[in-house]
């Protein structure tokens, strides 16, 4: 892999950029691999990268039915934070934030991780109680998160309307300064390039049609649109399509899939310095490096596999945005889209071995998977390599839904991820 750098860019500028190589190859498929990852989104690619980098397992293929990074990795609003309540979540997401902080250098790919701060607005007494609980728990878990008065919140984010006359006045905010955003496509591409450089095969337009099992039920490989490919270990990282894929191995998943919509405005000069989330008013917003306001909210109410959601969800999201930021009323929506998110009963992910030998699954990220990408890939690679969980995903089992040991951030916090 030719290294990227300012120097390399300057050198290529002098020769019409003729020297840039393919960022990843389109390799010849082998008949078998040590590990097959199904799904070339951020989590799947990160898993492959860390398998190669941390565990020396380079005989790996990542199979993707479409184009890499084309699912939720390339559709989300790129918010990164780790100010979660429960120890399991704080551990996992903070692990991710630490990896984010060095990710551009590690991958030699600028993923534009921007620690501009994530501010979560409290609008009533209940919000205050909930967010203060988070602030206290985060402090003792070593996760940065601080409480701001309405005036401090306004100082941090000047466009905020903190007038008392608002329908839901701002009563304060929890701010995680280390939170922020990253460039979603670059995350997928950076992992793909770095994994490919270590020998991982990234195979696009290759749909998995079946999972083949051996005499004692163990995984032996996958049937694909390009034929059978053998593997002793298969990791499923297929987001909204996880239920389908796992069904191929006769594993029922505790998942429901919902459309989640987002939108961007036309690009404008810098006017919004951080990420703001409001659960009560129900929306979140940041401004991209390109200048677009990036806006999202909760999922559509009905389960669906359609990547087009209803207009009313967009409308309600913008109601909320203009309620907190009335100055944005004359801005214009440039583009809206949807993705399919897979949601578990406790809205926390599953990163675990499955009852099928050799079959591993990483799913259920709901509306909040992007922020975890490096951490998720890192611990999932560990789980696959060692056939045992990393300390940060010990709690994220499939069995917790039968044992009752849930990690229910949403119920505890009434906060969307």
């Amino acid at each position, binding site marked *: 892999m030719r290294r*990227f*750098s300012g120097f390399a*860019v*300057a050198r*290529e500028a002098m020769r019409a*950029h003729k020297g840039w*190589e393919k*960022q990843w190859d*389109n390799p010849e498929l082998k008949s078998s691999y040590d590990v097959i990852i199904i799904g070339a989104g951020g989590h799947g690619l990160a898993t492959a990268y860390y398998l190669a980098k941390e565990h020396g397992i380079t005989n790996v293929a990542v199979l993707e039915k479409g184009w890499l*990074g084309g699912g939720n990795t*390339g559709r989300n609003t790129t918010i990164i934070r780790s100010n979660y309540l429960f*120890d399991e979540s704080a551990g996992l997401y903070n692990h991710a934030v630490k990896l984010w*902080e060095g990710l551009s250098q590690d991958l*030699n*790919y*600028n993923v534009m*991780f*921007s*620690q501009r701060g994530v501010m979560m607005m409290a*609008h*009533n*007494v*209940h919000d205050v*109680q*909930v*967010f203060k609980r988070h602030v*206290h728990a985060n402090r*003792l878990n*070593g996760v940065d998160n601080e409480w701001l008065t309405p005036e401090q919140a306004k100082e941090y984010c000047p466009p905020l309307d903190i007038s008392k006359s608002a*329908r839901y006045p701002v009563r304060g905010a929890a701010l995680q300064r280390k939170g922020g955003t990253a460039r979603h496509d*670059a995350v997928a591409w*950076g992992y793909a390039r770095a994994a490919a450089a270590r020998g991982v095969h990234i195979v696009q337009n290759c749909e998995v049609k079946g999972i083949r099992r051996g005499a004692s039920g163990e995984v032996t490989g996958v049937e694909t649109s390009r034929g059978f490919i053998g593997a002793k270990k298969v990791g499923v990282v297929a987001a909204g399509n996880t239920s389908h894929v796992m069904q191929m191995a006769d594993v029922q998943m505790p998942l429901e899939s919902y459309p989640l919509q987002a939108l961007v405005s*036309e*690009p*404008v*000069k810098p*006017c*919004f310095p951080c990420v703001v989330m409001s659960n009560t008013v129900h929306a979140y917003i940041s401004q991209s*490096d390109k*200048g677009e306001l990036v806006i999202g909210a909760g999922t559509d109410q009905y389960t669906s596999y359609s990547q087009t959601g209803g*207009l009313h969800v967009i*409308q309600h999201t913008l109601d909320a945005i*203009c*309620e907190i930021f009335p*100055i944005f*009323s*004359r801005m214009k*929506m*440039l*583009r*809206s*889209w949807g993705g399919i998110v897979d949601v578990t*009963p406790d809205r926390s992910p599953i990163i675990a071995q499955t009852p099928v030998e050799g079959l591993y699954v990483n799913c259920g990220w709901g509306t909040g998977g992007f922020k975890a990408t490096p951490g998720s890939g890192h611990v999932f690679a560990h789980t696959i390599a060692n056939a045992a969980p990393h300390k940060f995903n010990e709690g994220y089992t499939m069995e917790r839904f*039968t*044992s*009752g040991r849930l990690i*229910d951030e*949403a119920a*505890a*916090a009434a906060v969307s991820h």
Partner: protein
Amino acid sequence: MNAPVSIQPNRIPGKGRLSAADPLRFTFDGKTLPALKGDTVASALIANDIHLVGRSFKYHRPRGIVSAGSEEPNALLGIQRDVARHTPNIRATVQEVYDGLEATSQNRWPSLKYDIGEINDIASPLLSAGFYYKTFMWPRKAWDKVYEPFIRKAAGLGKAPVHKDPDHYSSQHEHCDVLILGGGIAGLSAALAAAKNGARVIICDEQATFGGALHFDSDVTVDGMDGFSWAQKVTAELAAMDNARVLLRTTAFGYYAQNYVALIERVTEHLSAPRADLPRERLWEVRAKKVIIATGSIERHMVFANNDRPGILLASAARTYLNHYGVGVGKNVGVYTANDSAYAAAFDLKEAGINIPAIVDVRDNPNEELLAKASALGIRVLTGHGVMAAGGKLRVSSMSVAPVNGGANEVIAVDSIIMSGGWTPSVHMFSQSRGKVTYDADKSRFVPGVYAQDCVSIGACNGTDNLSATIDEAIAAGEDAARAVRHNAKQSATAINATGGEAWEGTLIGAAPGAEAGKVVKAFVDFQNDVTAKDIRLAVQEGFHSIEHVKRFTTNGMATDQGKLSNMHGLAIAAEALGKDLPEVGLTTFRAPYTPVTFGALVSHSKGTLFEPTRKTPMHDSEVAIGAVFEDVGSWKRAWYYPKTGEDMHAAVNRECKTARTNVGMFDASTLGKIEVVGPDAAEFLNLIYTNPFLKLGVGKLRYGIMCREDGFIYDDGVVARIAEDRFHVTTTTGGAPRVLNMMEDYLQTEFPHMKVWLTSTSEQWAVIAVQGPKSRDIVSPFVEGIDLSTEALPHMSMAEGTICGVPTRLMRMSFTGEMGFEINVPADYGRAVWDTLYQAVEEAGGCAYGTEAMHVLRAEKGYIIVGQDTDGTVTPYDAGLGWAVGKKKTDFVGIRGLKRPDLVAEGRRQLVGLKSVDGRSVLEEGAQIVDDPNQPMPMKMIGWVSSSYWSGNAQKPIAMALIEDGFNLMGKKLYVPMANEVIEVEVCKAVFVDEEGGRLHG
């Protein structure tokens, strides 16, 4: 205001449809300019010989007006009528001039002509597609602090508004038989045919006048008149029909499921002094039985070196400016084309007296007739030639022409170039409807293929080129649609006779000669985002082989025009670089909106007090009158506390709590959710919904009930009254009312459909007044008739029906304070009167009203939980110390299996206990975490958290409730609450701080 037309140097007398009798003035970058009524800002600027109007996104290259429509990528301006109404990124080609309009160019500093950002153009070899992914990584900290702020400042286009929007918006839902998108000759013909056959028709078009291509195509004659005049006649005809609605300046921007189409109408933005009651824009949400898509096609530019110089524009745009606006785009206009349509434009310009130095046609053998006509007009045509580069910077000054197959360059001086690479059918709305396009290899274009909804495409957007074929198709579509939805309608044939409008042949997708692979030139594919042909090739070179990857890596098609000009070119260049056929590479997804839509219009009325309705109890105004301070609880305003003069919250709450315990207090409990559960199986149903047993609850008795989710965790709680054998009055928490009703309905319809039970929300039918305290009976009894209030007749947790203050009541003897008390339910309309009467009595007795804060303290003194505060979706009834409320003999209820799961019966679960502050004065912070050892290193092992905490005036100490691991077994144990600056020592105790025996309840 009487600017003579003559000072608009490019306005051509006798041309166009605007009247010199209607002069207007507007400003551009502070300079006042004349215009005519009907001008767009773009046509007025060109009339004033201004082509330089903006700077591009990345390289800050000088840019001019490219189009005459909504596909415009370059001419984006800040527009305002006053400071508060500043709006960025408005297309000059769409915005109509009104008197006093102020337009400002964007993305330049210090001025449009001298822009410091132009340094990016010089540095452009460094700034190739995706360069930012490859650099700015060292040193690590510099990204946030140095590089990113710099990039952000350079990016963006206009400036965001800084004032609250003074305008208002409106929205309207509409149903119709046939919705027609586009008011060109196809759409109008279809509308006429449909409306004449009785269908209820809506037709919309984004322009200020109907006509579509008839705005520029002067060769068309319809029913004996020129095409544009015909369009106006038909528009008037449709507008006069009762069953047709005509929407001008209205863009169909989103096509959703089941023929639900969203339109946006610009209502006032073309008026100099709009009426204040008019909305700025109106959102139309239309549900149509049939949709006819007649969105036409969009001309493509030619991708050649420096094709972005101001003065270079689409041929059809030049023709529009001439034939509609009476404006010449230059005096000496070069033509560069791969399509016949540019000839028609050249002929019109020539006939208007504009010099055409040459038509450069990449084709070797264009249409003979066109060549003959050019020759007759004295226009030189260079076939088999290409424009290798445009000269000039702030305005095009020349074109360098050479044979396509190589040969010497000839430089031809021009002050404008018009171009045409052929036409792209507008399949946006068809694709948004989830239809699948198909590739017409013959003409190198995508056209509608497989339909997903009940719609049909007609005319140019369907790939129908020929005028009479278009009209036939349109009439058939209109008549078919009408007959399909109006079976009995009278049939009326529509006949339209048109001549002219020859089909235009020729196409060029991708890079033009001179900008092929290997040529290091700036031939722009996407103008606004500064994507060149070589950027697209670089993406392919670097392994981005999916068209979606190419788009994202180069940002091609992601600008505010959403790729209306650039997508096909980008696709063709990528396909060539990949060595694949175009359809193999595939199209990117067409996404709503078609053109950008104002947030405010989507919000419409849902703002301020209408953002979410504010719910107020019937007694709200009386509470205001006695000085209540309110808090938001869900969508309700609830009286939080009632400060007397000089009292702060703390003092008021202490007084209210003390008064309720020693005398009497009154509380507005109307916000509690209430559900009437009725039917022969009502008791059986509640027995399944609640953990408690309900079968044996006697008529006239109350029971505190807990309901769980399937997972066994507490979902809601409340008191249930049995009014009759088959009738229950169920109460829920304030926030839980809708979700509890939903859950009950869900179970009734899916799990227990055999049960005869009916659920009715009565939350807003009952006003509820809690009267609590030792004197509560004395207060209430004088007003009650028909109910014996003695403890013997009406003990704690019982109820009776009768009257109070002469109105019917469901009077419940119950308490959420630990004092003897009553909850008086009266029909909501009487709530305020009963409240006022009782309040007078309470006040005379020395009692007071108390708010939600005092209610919280009073219940915490007794250890009563609040679901959602002391529980959080991870707490079982047992954890909350409410195991007594789980029916031990019950074999089924919602959550019974969940409650048996191993982790829910494990030792050491977090359990709800009381906490005392060892120092006797520290009031803990709600949400604070509890540890066993405050000196352990981070991260600390947290064993619980404080769910409720108050100063109790009655107990004269701080009181708290907390969920702590194994809490029930830790009574008396010292634990610690580490705060940011101190550690507070606490002691575990029972969660009851007043009247542990509970005797006060019984009065």
